[in-house]
């Protein structure tokens, strides 16, 4: 029993320690970190290092140069309206990161709160919140985006809202499961006994002890959020046509895929590498958190 306990104790340690351990032991994690950091630098420095910033934001050049293949002047070529694709991608990196950050952090906040409140308060509250969570799990993001699009038209809100609506419930479920077992811990009973108000117990004793697995899941999800957001934008449900978003960029070139393939393929490659890198980061963290996952992974090879 004692050995089992001490292992549990090891597993629920903080996110910082998890990061440093994964960095030491996992090349996949390091690769993921490098890609994520590159993305971050692109997002921050993009508007400053982009060779043609105004074209990056979607304004066509004064004298139209048409679609040009990659050249020293335009390393990734230009699109049908003659805009420099490198600039568009650099500006678009910020857009991508912004969408990921908003969707994941809002979903995480809602999920953590709903899940832990359901688990800790129990009773009717637990039932209602769990029904809600399960209902929202059933919606696919693209269907919700379609509905929101027909209500409000195209826009950033459609992308963000449709993803948040379909995403938070997964975090709520993970938070709920973990909070259910934390609720039974005697330190929670002791805190109740000493008269600490319930909401304080929630924030002091429950949330810190359940946040690690949920945050790791959120990090893993950043790659999928990027993909989902890109597909909503690609389908023309989200951001408008001239917006510097990677999904929109792929869509812009889609009509010319045979004549000018670089217009779609280069932004597409960026989406692919970024999503892959973020997933690698999250997956290796999760394996580090739960050693049983690690063993299963090895079996595949």
């Amino acid at each position: 029993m004692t050995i089992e306990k001490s292992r549990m104790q090891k597993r629920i340690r903080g996110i910082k320690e998890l990061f440093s351990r994964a960095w030491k032991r996992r090349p996949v994690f390091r690769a993921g970190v490098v890609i994520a950091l590159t993305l971050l630098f692109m997002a921050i420095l993009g508007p400053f290092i982009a060779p043609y910033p105004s074209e990056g934001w979607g304004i066509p050049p004064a004298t139209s140069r048409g679609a040009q293949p990659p050249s020293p002047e335009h390393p990734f070529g230009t699109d049908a309206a003659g805009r420099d694709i490198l600039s568009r991608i650099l500006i678009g990196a910020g857009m991508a990161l912004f969408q990921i950050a908003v969707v994941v952090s809002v979903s995480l906040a809602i999920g953590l709160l709903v899940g832990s409140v359901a688990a800790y308060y129990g009773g009717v509250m637990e039932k209602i919140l769990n029904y809600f969570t399960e209902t929202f799990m059933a919606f696919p993001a693209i269907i919700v985006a379609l509905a929101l699009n027909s209500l409000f038209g195209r826009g950033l809100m459609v992308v963000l809202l449709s993803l948040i609506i379909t995403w938070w419930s997964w975090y709520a479920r993970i938070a709920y499961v973990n909070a259910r077992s934390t609720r039974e811990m005697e330190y929670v009973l002791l805190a109740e006994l000493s008269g600490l108000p319930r909401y304080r117990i929630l924030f002091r004793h429950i949330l810190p002890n359940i946040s690690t697995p949920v945050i790791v899941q959120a990090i893993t999800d950043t790659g999928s959020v990027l993909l989902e957001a890109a597909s909503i934008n690609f389908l023309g449900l989200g951001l408008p046509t001239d917006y510097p978003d990677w999904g929109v960029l792929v869509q812009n070139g889609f009509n010319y895929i045979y004549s000018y393939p670089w217009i779609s393929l280069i932004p597409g490659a960026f989406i692919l590498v970024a999503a892959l890198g973020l997933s690698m980061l999250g997956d290796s963290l999760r394996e580090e958190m739960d050693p049983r996952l690690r063993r299963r992974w090895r079996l595949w090879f």
Partner: protein
Amino acid sequence: MPQPLVKVVDLKKYFPVKGVFRVKGWVRAVDGVSFEIMKGQTLGLVGESGCGKTTVGKLVLRLLEPTSGEVYYNGENIYKLKGSKLKEFRRKAQMVFQDPYSSLNPRMTVFDIIYEPVKVYKLKVSDPEKFIVDLLYKVGLNESHLYRYPHEFSGGQRQRIAIARILALNPEFIVLDEPTSALDVSVQAQILNLLKDLQAKYNLTYLFISHDLGVVRYMSDWIAVMYLGQIVEFGPAEEVFEKPLHPYTKALFSAIPIPDPELTRKREKLKAPGEPPSPINPPPGCRFHPRCPFRMDKCSREEPEMIMVEDKHWVKCHLYTKK
């Protein structure tokens, strides 16, 4: 005659067994328990697993609401306390749990763990750090442990931290729910001695719950033996150990291992064959009768009453008559 600090009268706690549509039955976890504890003394509550010991401990602290019965603390019914009086009771009556691994929040430092109740009760502490270091010294730890996390401690040290947390509130009455059963023997002795020292120093009153008879004998002034939700024997510790009356107590005590094979062979052994019956449908009459080697016809029909057989020594058995 001095007032008892804790007086329990006919306490009952039934848990519902829920079926799909209706309550199928009741688990009679505690079924008519009465006892008293004097200030500064220790009552040892013994019995096998599942007989309701922990439930009694939780009822006495009002961690559970009883089905019926009363608990008086300093003459006041604790189930009727409200507001500031309830808060005061919650401060004075504390509990140490069996599992030192789940009673400390792994994400808080020792300082935060011990200081939390002090903050909740708004006790006046001029120098929190010194206050907590003093407490740590009282339980045999020191200032180097102040800002560490629970996973850096052994089981015994964690139990010391749990005790320090309680001492911060200056309690009068502590329910010790198997405080040493998760620890190995040498550490058990340290914790038990610590508890005894603290009792002598601060005039604490203990309700000591355990299935370890040796430990109970060492700690207790009084013993209550529980079987299937009821107390079957109650008396001064030494007397109950020297002269057990109830057949269940005798069977229980003859299971204590003696580290001497000669004595083990010679001593009178009493067996209680079988398993304790389910508390959902306890047997009629005396609850021990299906396993009792001395059972009579009467035992399966009439429930025996708790009678005083010797001076201050009660037993619930048809074999004895009132003195």
